[in-house]
């Protein structure tokens, strides 16, 4: 079986415009979550969120320096994807390499697509009482817009697919990308995910679910009050190991396994058994013993139900080894990036493996007896060769990814 490796990574979020700033912020315990105002007409709705707005100028400046304005005339979620992908391609050494890019594939996730494009259309129709919307409304809002944007912008001409599975979208995308390379269908796949859902309408949708925290995201903490929205994108360049070695690429990690299950039960209420089954499936695929020490990047939304269920899943999956592992939950720093979050957390998990350091869980007020996990509450030295990154999405869609340090078997 072909080995799949990561040769490039990029990300943009409230934490910053690239992975270096992101990592430095994470280990320094900085959170991007702060009060912001969202409204179709002005400052009307205050909420706490991990807004990427401060990072947008830097992220888009890099794009604008290389591409024409006209090419960037898309929804923000597509340009987030482009910014993260530009960083990943440059990192991998294939940006501008027409032959390798032309043969590459794209498998990219988004949960929400172009929220801003859709809401701008509604604002014209229902607020301004106009009877038309911008002609690019549909091409900007479709969930595959980011994948197409990447293809057109970077000249990637192979298989191009968008995956939408709520908050597991980009985790599923990375898993599928791994299988795509394993099966020999492409030597390089550009994968990850993007979402830009900090819009007034999207916020109302999340608030209506009563899932939002009034201030901070406090994964697995006593008195946690819910999730906090974030936004942005994360991209990984996945490559057949032989192809990567042949061109002398730097290898960050091996994408060693993926496991996915569905709950077949409830739209929003998670199921610990099926989440544990996805963790076990990923371990089996990666041929990684459950007792081997790992870094576990939790989905950790900070909602009462999800965190409790995830803690149960963790105990079910690691019945005799839970205390050997280190658990991180970085939504406390970047917010819930929805369809981008699985890729963002996988990038962070790989950086943590590379640096053998776990970034701390933020906002922790004290242990919850229902969430008995070995949490990293301060930057923690690691001594492990594998990271497990979990995404448990609405609709009961579970996706778990495993990365191993290069040459660790």
């Amino acid at each position, binding site marked *: 079986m072909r080995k799949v490796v990561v040769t490039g990574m990029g990300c943009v979020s409230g934490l910053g415009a690239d992975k270096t700033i992101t990592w430095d912020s994470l280990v320094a315990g900085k959170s991007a979550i702060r009060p912001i105002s969202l409204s179709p007409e002005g400052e009307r709705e205050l909420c706490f969120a991990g807004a990427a707005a401060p990072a947008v100028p830097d992220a888009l400046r890099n794009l604008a320096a290389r591409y024409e*304005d*006209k090419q960037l005339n898309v929804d923000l979620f597509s340009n987030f994807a482009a910014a993260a992908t530009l960083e990943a391609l440059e990192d991998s050494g294939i940006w501008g390499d027409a032959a390798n890019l032309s043969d590459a594939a794209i498998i990219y996730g988004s949960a929400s697509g172009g929220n801003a494009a859709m809401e701008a259309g509604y604002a014209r129709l229902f607020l301004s009482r106009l009877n*038309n919307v*911008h*002609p*690019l409304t549909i*091409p900007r809002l479709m969930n595959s817009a980011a994948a197409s944007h990447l293809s057109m912008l970077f000249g990637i001409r192979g298989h191009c697919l968008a995956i939408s599975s709520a908050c597991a979208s980009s985790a599923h995308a990375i898993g599928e990308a791994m299988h795509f390379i394993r099966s020999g269908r492409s030597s390089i796949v550009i994968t990850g995910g993007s979402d830009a859902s900090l819009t007034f309408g999207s916020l109302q949708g999340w608030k209506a679910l009563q899932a939002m925290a009034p201030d901070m995201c406090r994964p697995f903490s006593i008195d946690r009050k819910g999730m906090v929205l974030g936004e942005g994108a994360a991209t990984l360049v996945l490559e057949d190991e032989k192809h990567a070695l042949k061109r002398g690429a730097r290898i960050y990690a091996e994408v060693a396994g993926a496991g996915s299950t569905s709950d077949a039960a409830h739209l929003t209420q998670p199921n610990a058994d099926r989440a544990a089954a996805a963790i076990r499936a990923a371990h089996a695929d990666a041929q990684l013993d459950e007792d081997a020490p790992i870094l576990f990047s939790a989905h950790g939304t900070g909602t009462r139900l999800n965190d409790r269920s995830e803690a149960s899943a963790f105990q079910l999956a690691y019945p005799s080894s839970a205390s050997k592992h280190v658990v991180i939950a970085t939504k406390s720093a970047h917010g819930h990036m929805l369809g981008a979050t699985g890729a963002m957390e996988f990038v962070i998990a790989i950086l943590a493996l590379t640096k053998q350091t776990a970034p701390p869980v933020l906002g922790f007020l004290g242990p919850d007896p229902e969430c008995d996990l070995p949490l990293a509450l301060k930057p923690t030295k690691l001594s492990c060769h594998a990271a497990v990154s979990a995404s448990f999405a609405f609709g009961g869609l579970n996706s778990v990814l495993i990365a191993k340090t290069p040459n660790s078997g």
Partner: protein
Amino acid sequence: MNVERELQTLIGKKVKTHLEAGTKLMDAGLDSLDVIELAFDIEDRFKVQLPQIGTELISFTYGDLCRLVEKQLEAKADHALVAPAATIS
């Protein structure tokens, strides 16, 4: 309102080409989607409704486009003059 200057600005969002009256929009580098977006921008900027000519606009010259917009602006002005009388009667 200077129609030519406003149109140059709107088209300038798409292409940087200098436009002569006889320059066809397609020769200036606009594609089929660009002209649909341009028609939308013109309607928003000038508060007029263009005829539903869709992508046929691409074969217009810049001069044709200026005349079309001026014609729509004149029609709007005429309508504004007639409308109050109609209301009174």
